[in-house]
């Protein structure tokens, strides 16, 4: 087992593995999205309080979850990269950041479009919303920092450091609805208690959450392959590979 992990930590082997995995995750994401949307619009009933507007939940919650998950994974790879100086770790966190930013933006956008009809405001400076906005700014800031530093090693390390410092924001987002009085509702789904929503709604949301995972994996793997090619272009294996494709 340990042997295979080390084997796939080499960019060359990982490039091939990622190429094999991408179609599975991409098609998985597409199929689950269609299924999830069918449940969201044609099987889930109208909410007795919020009418049809609640249907935004099916993308708002998965997007918000993904924006936090992806950040945690980036923090993990940054820690590994800083500790062991492994090449692939920094490439992984770079490959994840744009997708994380997309999900962070979507959680804010869908939140605003849900807040307007339900709360009467597109935006309020409440703890949950503000910390989510900071998460989006962190993603943008990290990508800007990477592109601002030309030296690749320094760029990788500076980005990793910023990611790790910013990681404090993730538990703040998660617990903000408990720690402060906020307009945002508490979690409808948690590991500790049974969910406070109709089961077909929950199923639709979970299907779309898994679709979002698959999508994020497919995009990150595609991006990491590009980064590997760029960084390893002087090596023999990339030169040989280019002759084949």
């Amino acid at each position, binding site marked *: 087992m340990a042997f295979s992990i080390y084997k796939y930590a080499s960019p060359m082997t990982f490039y091939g593995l990622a190429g094999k995995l991408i179609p599975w995750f991409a098609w998985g994401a597409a199929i689950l999205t269609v299924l999830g949307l069918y449940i969201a619009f044609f099987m889930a009933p109208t909410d007795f309080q919020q009418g049809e507007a609640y249907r935004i939940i099916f993308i708002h919650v998965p997007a918000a979850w993904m924006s936090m998950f992806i950040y945690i994974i980036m923090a993990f790879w940054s820690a590994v990269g800083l500790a062991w100086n492994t090449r692939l770790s920094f490439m992984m966190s770079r490959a994840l950041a744009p997708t994380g930013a*997309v999900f962070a933006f979507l959680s804010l956008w869908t939140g605003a479009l849900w807040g307007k009809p339900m709360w009467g405001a597109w935006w309020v400076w409440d703890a949950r919303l503000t910390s989510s906005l900071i998460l989006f700014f962190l993603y943008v800031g990290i990508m800007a920092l990477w592109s601002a530093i030309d030296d690749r090693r320094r760029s990788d390390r500076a980005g990793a450091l910023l990611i790790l410092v910013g990681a404090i924001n993730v538990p703040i987002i998660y617990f903000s609805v408990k720690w402060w009085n906020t307009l945002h509702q508490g979690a409808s789904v948690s590991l500790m208690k049974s969910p406070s929503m109709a089961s077909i709604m929950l199923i639709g949301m979970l299907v779309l959450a898994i679709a979002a995972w698959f999508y994020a994996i497919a995009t990150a793997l595609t991006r990491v392959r590009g980064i590997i090619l*760029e960084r390893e272009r002087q090596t023999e294996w990339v030169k040989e590979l*280019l002759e084949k494709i």
Partner: protein
Amino acid sequence: MQWASWSAFWDMGGYGLYVWGSYGALFFLILAETFFLVRGRKRTLQQIRRMKNWEQQ
């Protein structure tokens, strides 16, 4: 079936703007990200090929 007609479906009980505004943004961003990923991959391959040809001259 939840909907009496297609117009009821698009109307979303009067919340059409908010619901479709959310789903529209989702699909726009997914398509945009996919487009940039595919284009980025092509450009990377082109660039590496160009550099390789330049080295061989």
